Every structure is written in C-alpha cells, then in structure tokens.
C-alpha cells in the first residue's frame, strides 16, 4: 500500500503537467538576429554571413538594403497554446528579446500572433498579425557599429523543429 502511495505521489506532477493543454505546441517560432552594413565589419570578425535567403529578401527591402549581412544568432522556440514564450536570438544577451503568444488557432496558412520586441529590457513594440508559413517577418532594430540590427521571424510547423 505504501509503495502504491509513494508511486502515485511521484507520478502526480507528471500527470498534472500532462493535463495542461495550454503547454501544447501549436507551432514553432524561428528567430534570427542579422547585422546589415555597407562595409565588411572588422569589429564583427568571425561572425558568419547570413543565409542567401535572407540576403535575397532583404536586398529587395528599401530601408534595410545593405551590401553585407551577417548572422549574429538564432533561436527556435515553441509557441504554446496558452502561455507566453520568449526567444533570444542573440544567445547570452538580453539586449534583443522577443515575447510571443498565439492569438488564434493555427490555420493552413498561418497563425495570428501577439509579438513583442524588447530592446535593452524595455518593450518597444507590440504587434498582432498573421504570421504565414514560409514568409519571413523582418523588424528593423537599432543602428550599431555603422550598420543596423535586423530581427527576422518565421513561423514553423511543430514537426520542423529538427530541420
């Protein structure tokens, strides 16, 4: 009897957490922190170049068009059904953070998302919009070292985590 009770006590937390549907992943949010500049930055030496896809897209965006793009960091986080989650595209830094939570059920083409941009630990912008699959959202960030920080956000299906 005592063994039963102990086992039940140990299993209880996992049973309770399993019932919390609010923690279900409805999608994934891929975030990336890019640095655009018109001169190859020596100060950011060793930082990898941004993927070609980002370069091609951003080169068509007036206002974010630069000759060089580097990728400072990236992060992929789950979008929970009922909870706010955070992404930190610059790992180890709190200067650029994103918080997000769903505002609708995920549909075939996307998900309505409440997205907040935090810069230097202060909320700068909140948006409510439909994020579409395979369509990046870029947010212009602060100027820095002669260039500009650019935050990229993409909606992923939950099964795309490992890709």
């Amino acid at each position: 009897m005592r063994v039963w009770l102990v086992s039940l006590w140990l299993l209880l937390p996992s049973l309770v957490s399993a019932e919390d549907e609010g923690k279900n992943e409805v999608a994934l949010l891929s975030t990336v922190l890019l640095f655009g500049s018109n001169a190859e930055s020596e100060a950011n030496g060793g930082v990898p170049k941004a993927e070609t896809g980002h370069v091609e897209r951003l080169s068509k965006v007036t206002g974010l068009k630069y000759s060089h793009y580097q990728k400072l960091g990236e992060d992929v986080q789950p979008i929970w059904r009922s909870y706010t989650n955070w992404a930190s595209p610059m790992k180890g830094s709190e200067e650029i953070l994103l918080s997000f939570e769903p505002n609708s059920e995920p549909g075939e083409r996307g998900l309505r998302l409440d997205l907040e941009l935090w810069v230097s630990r202060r909320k700068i912008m909140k948006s409510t919009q439909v994020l579409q699959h395979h369509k990046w959202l870029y947010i212009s960030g602060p100027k820095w070292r002669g260039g500009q920080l650019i935050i990229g956000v993409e909606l992923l299906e939950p099964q795309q985590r490992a890709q």
Partner: protein
Amino acid sequence: MKSERQEELLVRWMDDELNEAEGRELEELLQEQPELRALRDQHALVRRDLREVYTQGDDIPYGDFFQSRLQRAIAEEENTLETPAPKAATGWKEMFRWWLAPVGVGAMALAFLAGTRVASGPEAEMVAAGGDSPLLYTPEGGITAHYQAVDDAGANVIFIEGLAAFPDSLDLMAGSRTEDESDLHLVRHEQKVF
C-alpha cells in the same frame, strides 16, 4: 395597472418570460403605447445577434479594452438619461428609458464582438494574411512603427523609427549589456496618453 406591475411585466416581456396570462395583462398596456413593440423588437434583435456572435464559455477577447469602452458608453448613456425628463412622463415610462441604454450598449458590444470574432476566425486570418496591416503598438514615446508588405521579396517588414543606436562599445557577441534604462540606447520621452 400599478406602475410596479407594469415595470415587472415590461422587463419580463423584453426577455420573453411572460406566460399566457401575463401576456394578456400586458396587452392592455401595449394598446396604449404601441411604440413599445418596436423597442422590444430592437432589443430582441440585439440579443439574438449577440448570441450568434458570442457563445457562452468563450473568453472575451481584449477584455480590458472592451470593458473600458463599455464603461464609457454606459457613462455617456447615464449622462444622457440624467437630463430632466418631461413632466408628462410616468413612472414606468421613466423606467423604460433605461431600456435604451442596454440596447445601445448591446449594439456596441455586438459590433465589437463581431469584429473580434471575424478577426480571429480562420477565414479572417486569410483576409488578414492577404494584405491587412497588423495592429502595431509602441509604448515608448518618440518611437513609431509602420508595416510594409514586400511581396516581391516574399517578406513583411516592420520598420521602427526613433530607436536610439546601440553604442559601438556594446559587444553583443560577448553578452555585454547596456547599463540601465537612462543610457543612450533609447530616447526617453513622455509616455503616450491614450
């Protein structure tokens, strides 16, 4: 018919709660005031539409915003109703003017809920994804944001203006951080007042 009884009958009539005997009792009053039927129809219409748009058990979206709008509307209605009534008004007629407030507020709630329901439904997502601009909010004064869909790039962009530059000395890769809120990273202005 006593005024209190008239009020009770009118209230229950509005909510479709009269039994047959009470209905006959009220008929006398309706013959004197036929315009009450039109008001009741209006009330019933709002109530029906509210039920269609808003199902019980759903969380009200943007609850704080909705509540503040509702309170303001009620306050405005109260101000309107506080104006001196014509001397000829009887007790139940005075009471009946209060029905105008719920009907008006109900219509506003209906419009709000219909809008949010459309906005959060799957069909509306398609509409929004097809070109509607997102809602953008910038709490810091002096900072603005605008949205641009760049179709040929296959991307959308939010441009944020008024954001102060990071100092070159800030080493993001090393995880260094800004000193405090009063440093150079943000231009501090007064909070926006809505």
